[in-house]
């Protein structure tokens, strides 16, 4: 009898441990800005007639917020990532490349995340020449010229770095940012400010958010029974 019960306990434990790794948790939350938002700016593209030809004016994406109430606005273009607390073992590689398009003389998306070793594909949809110049310090130099109609240029970051600035020397206003990590726990917010990072075990994590003008904020969140919530608020009041 004894033997039987202990066997059953072992079996239960096994099931439990399998369950706890299989059903991983998610961190969810919203990034907001409190205060008077920076007015949206348009960029003068006189430098390149091809860029001015496009009907829409180019928006500066350094500070993007959605509709807000009571002086609190959800923020877009925020890179959110788990800074510490996750297990250090290697994670399965990303599926598929990260594609960054050069369209209407801006980078689409303006903020994104990539895994170390993941293929990053730069595309030029414009009828003009751009160059993709990575200013990353941890990965090998990358500065590729892409004339109109050039095939996509591929690149892979070699080491984590938050954030890597990428710019076009031909169009000084053109820049974008890529957060490079060796794990998959990151997200980029849309204008609703919401993010969701899945695949995390129960535990406590440090989460950092990055904003192009306002820098980084960190918060701590505990995932229990598969979920945790963390809201981050930026402000410029001192």
């Amino acid at each position, binding site marked *: 009898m004894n033997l039987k019960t202990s066997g059953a306990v072992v079996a239960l434990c096994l099931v439990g441990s399998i369950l706890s790794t299989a059903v991983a948790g998610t961190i969810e939350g919203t990034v907001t800005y409190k205060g008077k938002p*920076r007015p949206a700016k348009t960029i003068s593209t006189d430098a390149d007639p091809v860029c001015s030809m496009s009907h829409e004016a180019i928006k500066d994406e350094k500070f993007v917020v959605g509709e807000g109430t009571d002086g609190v606005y959800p923020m877009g273009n925020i890179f959110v990532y788990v800074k510490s607390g996750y297990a250090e073992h290697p994670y399965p590689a990303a599926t598929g490349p990260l594609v960054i398009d050069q369209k209407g003389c801006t980078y689409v998306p303006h903020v994104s995340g990539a895994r170390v070793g993941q293929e990053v594909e730069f595309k030029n949809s414009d009828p003009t020449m751009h160059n993709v110049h990575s200013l990353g310090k941890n990965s090998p130099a990358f500065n590729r010229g892409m004339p109109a109609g050039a095939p996509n240029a591929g690149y892979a970051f070699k080491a984590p770095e938050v954030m890597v600035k990428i710019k076009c020397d031909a169009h000084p206003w053109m820049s974008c940012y890529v957060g490079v990590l060796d794990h998959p726990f990151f997200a980029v917010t849309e204008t609703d400010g919401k993010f969701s990072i899945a695949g995390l075990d129960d535990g406590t994590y440090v989460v950092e958010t990055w904003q192009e*003008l306002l820098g980084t904020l960190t918060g701590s969140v505990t995932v229990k029974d598969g979920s945790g919530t963390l809201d981050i608020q930026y402000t410029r009041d001192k």
Partner: protein
Amino acid sequence: MADKKENSHEWDQRHYSAHLLNIIFALSSLIFLASMILMFWKDYDREWRTHQRSFRQVELAKTQEALAIEQERLTSASSYTTLSNRVAELEAAQAAQKSELDAMAVDRDKADKKLGVATQDLNFEKAEASAMRYRVEAAHGEHDHKAEALRAAYEKLTLSVSTKSSVVDGLQAELEALTAAMTARTAAVDEARKELGKVTLQRDLLALRLSKLDPSKMDVATRLGDTVRDLPLMDALNPRYNIRDHQIIVEGITEDLIFDRVPRVDRCTVCHLGIDRKGFEDQPNPFKTHPDLDLFLGLSSPHPLKEFGCTSCHGGRGRGTSFTSAAHMPRSPEQAAEWKEEYGWHELHHWDRPMRPAQYTQAGCFECHSGASQTTGADSLNLGLAVVERAGCYGCHEIEKYVGRSRVGPTLQHIASKVTPQWAYHWLNDPKGFRDHTWMPSFFNQTNNSDIKDRTDQEANAMVQYLMRESRAHEAAHESMPTGDAERGRVLTRSLGCQGCHMLDGETYPETLTIQSLRRQQGPGLTGIGSKTTALWVFNWLKDPRAYHPATRMPNLRLSDQEAADTAAYLVSSRKDDFAATPPPAPAAEALDAIALEFMVPGMTRAQATQALATMSLDEKQQYCGSKLIRRYGCFGCHDIPGFEDARPIGTTLNEIADKSISKLDFGLQHDLPHINYAWFEQKLANPRLFDEGMVKEPKDRLRMPNFHLEPAAINAVVTALLGFTKPDDELKKMVPRTPRRIFVEKGEALAGELNCRGCHVLRGDGGAIKDSVAYWLEHIKTNSDASEEDDSGEDDGWGEEEEEIDVAALARAYSPPNLTGEGAKVQPTWLFHFLQAPETIRPWLTLRMPSYGLSDDQLNTLTAFFSYDAEKPFPFVSQTVVDTNSAAYAAGREMFSPSAMSCARCHITGGQTPIGSSEDNWAPDLAKAHARLRGDWILTWLQNPQAIEPGTKMPMYWAPGEQSPVPHLDGDPQRQREAIRDYMFSLGNTQ
């Protein structure tokens, strides 16, 4: 012999005691035995043996550790696990078939034996057949009647041979088939083992090494042998611990041994056992790895151990096998004491080439590299030579390397037009009082003459008065100047590149002198100028430095009148009025007489001299003393002085100073100082008057070398250089072959050093001292002027300007002088010649200005050849790239160049047209100048991978290796595309 008794009787009759003799004999043989044992023990117990024994332990531990790590690495490597699992699996499978395989082996052995028997049988038959053939032929020749019968027998035998031979062939095939069947069964295992072997190679090598080191890994016989061969006495035969296997017989370098040259033998490695091996960095000496294996000892390094040995660089006694006999030299008296305590060390007096103490090791580089101004890896030596050049040591002391160099200080030919006598008097008395970091050394108020200050004040004044009286008139080109604006001048001094050679007022000198900070001190520090001279003098000087001082190193910056006036206004705004506030002392007849007598008396009697003096006016006495004192102090070593244009330097020669006998160095009363040359040099440089201390000397006999107030790092560097000034060793010199390249590069380097090119430019990977000043300019001056230009029309949104993130490094690169590393591969020699002669603007966005140096044709050729030879490019003629403007390729080039493709003019200036809408810091050189300036082959290499030539450049790479070309022209062939673009570029602005 006949009668023993008789003999023994006689024996007893001897007048000495046999008994005593026996005792003496016994004792002496005992002593002899003891001393024999002691001798063997002494030999057995020699230092190096102990070192080799303990090194074996270290090596053993290291190898075990490495093996464990390698094993660990293998265990965690998936390839290893997979392969070894596979081997195990296959081996198991094979084991299961053992009986089958064994049976096959038996079959094969049987077949093999059968084949053996059959082959032998065949061979016998063959032998018989050939014997028979001989008999047939013989019978046939003799017309023997038996010939026919023999022939029949022979044919029968032939038939039998062919039958047997087909039997053998059959058996052979059978054996091969059986063997093949067996190999087929084992092939998988063998293959897998081979694969695994490739992965475990490193581990297996370590294990092999360990098996030779570790007694516990040896079989009993080997282990016994290993122990016995190193026992005392036995070790005379073939010991593990020995000198022979470790010593280095240096190829091609000999040493003097009593009237003969014998090959140099360096036994340093008998104890320094890990010196050329990686992995012993953490060990104490003598096992420690050499600190720079890339540069030294390694087979692929420029100084392989076998060719250079150790003593070629370090000095010392190579044949020595003990700490003392190798002529080790301590770095300090403290270390000497430590060594005496620990190793029983003493100085090896009879050896005239002791090891250089650790801090002066680089002096050894100079033995071979005496022609170079900069030796890779010899920072201290390089700094030492640079200080020697900057301080102008060669002005007073002959140094072969610097023969023919121009004087280091400003000319005093027209001194009266530049400074007042009062200022000059105070300057001569106390240069440091005016400028903290001046390179003008102090002659007065020193430890050996502050007691005679009244006299030295008279001396200084007499010299100044001489200079002023003899000063020749100077016609300045401009008698007036526009009104200058000091603020604009401040901006100019920080924008034009003055800081490549000068420290400006308010700048802080770094705590320790480095070769880089020294580059910024090539010209005087620009402080206190308003108290020294007039704005008009500075204005004239800036407009044309050579008009005042033909040999000056100050180049012409081609300043406009207004620029020069502004700069002058700024420079004279720095004042130090309290420095020369008091008038010099009035000439004192008594003191001047005393000084004059010192000079006159050897040539005449005292009475005659006194008489002569009585007829001289005070001015004449001052003039006489001034002239004589200038000679005594040797001022003309550094300055061009009227009346002393051809005077000989006053100091002792520094050639071979390192070999100078210690007895010729006067230690005075400094008994505590170690009697070693470098200790003397150190003290001499720290206080040149030290060795007068405590001595009673007439003023005229006192030491005269002035005090340069060198800091410890500079002293250390200069002593390194001095210790390098040895008697040239022809064999060592030959180690640096005098190839044309080396000769041209050395000549060019020397001139580049004199012109201080590295103050602004990075050259051969080193230099660019102005870098920090450019960063300062960007932060404090450029941003201010940009801000004032911008009109802030937009209303304030409360977010200010802090949002603009500036890539400082990229900006600093954009506004820095061009990096000249590899310049010879880039530009055409003819262009470079003309550019250096009369610089043209290549980068209009730079505020820094390439000055005009007024170089001679000879100097221009030296520099042009230097760049080409350094880059190993043809010199001086370069064939022109011929461009066919009617070709299809040319049309393709034009298209690729255009905005619709690579849009080169987006960043590059073309024919003076600056890129539209692009900010200055994004601009790139004018491509219309490329045809005259750039080498055609360089452009192709550059286009292929700009980052490889200039890391961090904004020039993008268009053709990634192995990827499709980004443009479709010319069949998408990258090489043809690059050539087409270059050809189109070469047609721009080319009017020919």
